[in-house]
């Protein structure tokens, strides 16, 4: 039992905007009142619901490949020294699993959604997630380049496709479905890409990226997944790609979708030298599309390592940077590329990218539909979120940062003209309440009775980045995990899954196709339940209305 008294509470779901409230906790949940137990006097402090990361890459084959590729970064970063209660670890661009849990919890984030999991190596992802302590987890399975599914979509066999998608979600023990560069990654297996929404994907006769997107979005709505299609559009990172992104949004035709790392998809210009921000046009369109949510995928200047299932883009980035490059193909399902990268304010393209992320966050008017992410580790590492919060809350600081950009870059962006400053209430929405809602997790992102007792207590501090980077207390599931900057407990997190219904006969269809093309036994393909740490199966919902 625990009571947090006297704090200024920010609970956007219940419209609480800095009023003094007590938060009572019993048995891991927020309750109306408790008798006895510890009391935390939060007078003069700020109380938030635990952070929720809607899109991050913290576990699985690709981030683990990135770890292997960056020993030089591990050496220069902060090291976690083992203690009697904590494991050792390394922070940096691609933190180790234990460090990932400590770093997220250390800044008050208590739920993370691993955004890209191939079924074939989903066992790996879940094993790694088990070693990410403290936070609750979920993951999205990659689907938009799965060749068996693409064949069905091309043939218009929607019902069978729906059973297949449901089967695959359960096989991967996933929570949602991620589509990455629909059709493009499949084409990359032959060295090609798919850039136009209405053009046939190489290797198919009529299938287009648009058909993949709409087909999947429809199936996901029919299945009633709590989280809509998690969409990484085609043509990521390319100048002028706003047209592809808008086309994608239009093709959804009112269906639910979450647009991942929108920053990377909102560029104008014809080539690298003319690339510019199209954040205002994107925001203007997006503001009207109530069916959509998005996350920022914001960029911060500095070193990072980029990892994405978007193989063709990563090969291009490797050619542009001449740095290290790793590529993984995952049989018929997907692939991924890994390239270490440094974002520099002096670089025109990087400057535009930096501005676009912030511009989207500032120009999209409904904070319930855009969330704070950096597409970790692509735009920046997740442990730099407090820096973005500072940029959003403080116009003067932002303008000071703009002066780092070259004259030329400043002409390509709109940030200098934007005066909006986020309130704490809005920050609580984009870091917690909003993403929890978009993920369809009713017990996350708020502090009402029945919510999971994930609570962050900050000291008030004029230095916004310091305030949000160093919470005084972090409570996870009712347990104090961080106190005065020290890790006090490292409980295992839970994992959220969904189990959409499907016809078992789909296995009869799938098995021969699988056995013909895959290199493993069909029986060994699905993830067994015992691999999931503290599973919690979420209900599917009715989205027909």
């Amino acid at each position, binding site marked *: 039992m625990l009571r947090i008294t006297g704090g200024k509470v920010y609970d956007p779901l219940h419209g609480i905007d800095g009023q003094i409230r007590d938060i009572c906790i019993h048995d891991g949940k927020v309750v109306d009142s408790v008798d006895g137990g510890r009391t935390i006097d939060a007078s003069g402090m700020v109380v938030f619901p635990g952070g929720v990361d809607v899109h991050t890459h913290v*576990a699985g*084959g690709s981030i*683990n490949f990135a*770890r*292997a590729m960056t*020993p030089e970064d*591990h*050496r*220069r*970063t*902060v*090291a*976690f*020294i*083992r*203690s*009697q209660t*904590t*494991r*050792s*670890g*390394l922070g*940096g661009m*691609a*933190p*180790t*699993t*234990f460090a990932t849990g400590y770093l997220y919890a250390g800044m008050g984030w208590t739920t993370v959604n691993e955004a890209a999991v191939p079924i*074939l*190596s989903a*066992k*790996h992802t879940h*094993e*790694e997630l088990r*070693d990410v302590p403290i936070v609750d987890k979920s993951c999205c399975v990659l689907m938009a380049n799965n060749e068996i599914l693409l064949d069905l979509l091309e043939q218009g066999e929607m019902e069978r496709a729906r059973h297949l998608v449901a089967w695959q979600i359960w096989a991967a023990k996933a929570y949602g479905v991620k589509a990455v560069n629909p059709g493009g990654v499949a084409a*990359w*297996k*032959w*060295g090609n890409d798919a850039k136009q929404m209405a053009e046939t994907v190489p290797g198919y006769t009529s299938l287009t990226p648009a058909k993949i997107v709409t087909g999947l979005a429809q199936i996901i709505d029919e299945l009633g997944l709590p989280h809509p299609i998690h969409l990484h559009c085609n043509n990521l990172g390319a100048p002028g790609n706003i047209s592809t992104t808008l086309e994608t949004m239009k093709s959804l035709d009112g269906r639910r979708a979450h647009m991942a790392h929108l920053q990377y998809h909102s560029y104008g210009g014809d080539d690298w030298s003319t690339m510019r921000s199209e954040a205002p046009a994107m925001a203007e369109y997006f503001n009207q599309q109530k069916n959509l949510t998005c996350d920022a995928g914001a960029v911060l200047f500095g070193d990072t390592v980029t990892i994405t299932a978007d193989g063709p883009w990563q*090969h291009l980035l*490797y*050619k542009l940077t001449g740095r290290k*490059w790793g*590529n*993984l*193909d995952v049989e018929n399902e997907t692939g991924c590329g890994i390239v270490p990268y440094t974002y520099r304010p002096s670089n025109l393209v990087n400057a535009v990218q930096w501005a676009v992320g912030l511009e989207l966050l500032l120009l999209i008017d409904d904070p319930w539909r855009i969330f704070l992410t950096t597409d970790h580790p692509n735009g920046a590492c997740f442990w730099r979120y407090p820096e973005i919060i500072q940029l959003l809350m403080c116009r003067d600081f932002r303008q000071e940062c703009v002066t780092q950009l070259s004259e030329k870059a400043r002409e390509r962006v709109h940030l200098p003209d934007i005066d909006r400053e986020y309130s704490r209430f809005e920050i609580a929405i984009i870091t917690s309440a909003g993403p929890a809602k978009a993920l369809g997790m009713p017990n996350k992102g708020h502090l009402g009775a029945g919510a999971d007792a994930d609570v962050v207590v900050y000291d008030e501090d004029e230095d916004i980045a310091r305030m949000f980077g160093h919470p005084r207390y972090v409570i996870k599931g009712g347990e104090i995990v961080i106190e005065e900057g*020290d*890790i006090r407990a490292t409980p295992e997190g839970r994992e959220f899954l969904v189990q959409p219904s499907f016809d078992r006969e789909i296995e009869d269809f799938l098995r021969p196709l699988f056995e013909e093309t895959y*290199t*493993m036994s069909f029986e*060994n393909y699905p993830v*067994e339940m015992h691999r999931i740490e503290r599973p919690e199966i979420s209900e599917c919902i009715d989205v027909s209305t």
Partner: protein
Amino acid sequence: MVLVDIRETKSVKASDIFLQIRPGKDFEVITILRALVKEQPVDESQVQETGLTLEQLQDFVDRMKKAKFGVFFFGMGLSMTRGKHMNSAALLTLAAELNAFTKFVAMPMRGHGNVTGADVIMRWQTGYPFAIQFGRGYPRYNPGEFSTVDLLVRGDVDAALILGADPGATMPQPAIDHLARIPTICLDPKVTHTSRLSRVHITTAATGISAPGTGYRMDEVPLPLRPALKSPYPTDEQVVRRIHEAVLKKPDWLQQGNRMALNQV
């Protein structure tokens, strides 16, 4: 299929082209290929020392560029001969560079059943794939410094726990001699050469035969193990956990307090 080796092996029958190179010329051959891929000139007189002609190598490059999807498989003949990791690096670089023309990948042929699992797990837990030292309470990595043969030959370790390996029958003699000098503990389904130079041997169930769990294929795909037998012996997992639990009961050598090392050594 193109086979490259220093002698005719049984695989020659299965291959379309056999390139027999001279021993120890791997790095030279691959470096020439890298140059030819980029249409850079090479010194023809020196090419002959590889055992191949420029025509053969040029033909090889042309075929690779024309392939729709190429794969290099490589093994110990590359990584354990003169040049070692640089030979492997050369091949990986060649594969990367061929992607400017077509799709090409490279895959190491791993000898041991779950060496990939060890790589993968050490990476996610420590950031590094092997040769990791925890003496300062956090992971540090340096092959050549913290790798087993170096540690044993130089006498840099003062006890050893050997899990599912028989270094007593495979390592250089000076390394074996050091294992015999220090307290060595060995877990294996059989009594091995290493068991005989160990102070402690514990017999364990055989992986995947009588011990359940997971193994990683060399392309990093995890697979479940389905044991067919029930062993009278405990599994490695159980024994290591019990040793760990016994160690945890002893006073901790690490001074509590520092959680973070801001400057690593």
